[in-house]
């Protein structure tokens, strides 16, 4: 009667950021102080929302065409693939992005940064990956913005990514950064990722092949989700 469980690989040690990072002040009262309880993966964990929810419209992946006018800023394309750890494509899964406008301000009532709003930019997009795991968003390059973490603190320009994969265990929230940004070295959130390799994975690559001539600079950002464990299931 029990479904056969094909478990997912546990993440490598010290690959994701820890939750307790003194340099990122908001973690102080929000990180669990007790160790996580390790549990086996059951049907509850290996299943999950595949498509997220809600209908996806044709303009949802082009953040420059969601309003009557065009948003201000440098038009960019972000293209990439969602893969698992064995480099297999993850098709038909929901990828979502959200970001600040070109001036570094979010279309959110509680963003009080004294920078211009842009009535032609909402800053949210979504699409399903294709059969090869591919996605492609058109947007504008977000601005850097100050935040209250420490004296003269600025977040590097970034685009938030939300990816589902095909399991509760593959769910990923992350941020994409831009190559060569001098703020990266100073950012406690980016630098909470413990390994140089991990931090490199969060930085998109400029890509002339993604660039649309005469229209938009191209960046490549591939995303790797947890893959299946190679060891046989225990039941």
């Amino acid at each position: 009667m029990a479904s056969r469980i094909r478990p997912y690989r546990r993440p490598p040690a010290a690959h994701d950021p820890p939750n307790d990072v003194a340099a990122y002040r908001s973690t102080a009262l929000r990180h669990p102080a007790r160790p996580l309880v390790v549990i086996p993966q059951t049907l509850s964990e290996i299943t999950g929302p595949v498509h997220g929810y809600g209908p996806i419209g044709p303009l949802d992946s082009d953040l420059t065409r969601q309003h009557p006018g065009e948003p201000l800023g440098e038009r960019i394309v972000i293209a990439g693939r969602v893969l698992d750890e064995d480099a297999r494509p993850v098709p038909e899964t929901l990828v979502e992005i959200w970001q600040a406008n070109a001036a570094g301000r979010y279309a959110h009532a509680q963003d009080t940064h004294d920078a211009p709003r842009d009535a032609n930019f909402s800053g949210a997009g979504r699409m399903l990956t294709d059969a090869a795991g591919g996605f492609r968003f058109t947007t504008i390059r977000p601005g850097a913005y100050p935040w209250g973490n420490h004296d003269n603190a600025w977040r590097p320009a970034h685009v938030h990514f939300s990816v589902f994969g095909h399991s509760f265990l593959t769910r990923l929230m992350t941020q994409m950064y831009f190559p060569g940004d001098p703020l990266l070295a100073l950012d406690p959130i980016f630098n909470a990722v413990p390994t140089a390799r991990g931090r490199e994975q969060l930085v998109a690559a400029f890509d002339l092949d993604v660039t649309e001539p005469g229209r938009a600079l191209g960046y490549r950002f591939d995303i790797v989700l947890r893959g299946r464990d190679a060891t046989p299931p225990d039941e």
Partner: protein
Amino acid sequence: MLPPTPCQTVGPFFAILVPEQDRLSLVQDGTPGQRITVEGTIRDGAGHPIPDALVEIWQANADGNYNHPEDARNTEPDTTFDGFGRVHTNTAGRFRIETIKPGSVPGPGGRPQAPHLMVGLFARGLLTRLVTRIYFEDEPSNDGDPILAEVAPDRRPTLVAARREAGRYSHAIVLQGPAETVFFDV
């Protein structure tokens, strides 16, 4: 082999992507099963409500089936119940889920698991997703649940929603401190 992409915080402004606040309904008119409401609060290590948390719920339907191709017991998909939803807390750190009591699903070795909701939690100040579960106080099968059995007895109550009246539960998620909720490494 490729290492997985590291996670980062969801930050404070995800509401421009996820507008649903305060209340989440997973049911349709025709969804079979016992209707329940779970009223949740999320608090930090100082006991303050967290007004900017994102809560994701994943659960089985009333028969204990997941709407997913790897639940091999499914003969046909349940079109009245998807089992996924997300909601963000209000300024008082509260959220409300209207759903159905899930059925029992198999656990390790085929042992049945007590009815539970899977919870993924994101917030500013959290660099990873926290994973927890919500069980139900009035389920006798909690005593035999193979996942609760992995948790020290004195901490199990942090995973169990209190019954307020028929079909109405309340549940506190505490990120840090003496009443800290159990979070799982899955």
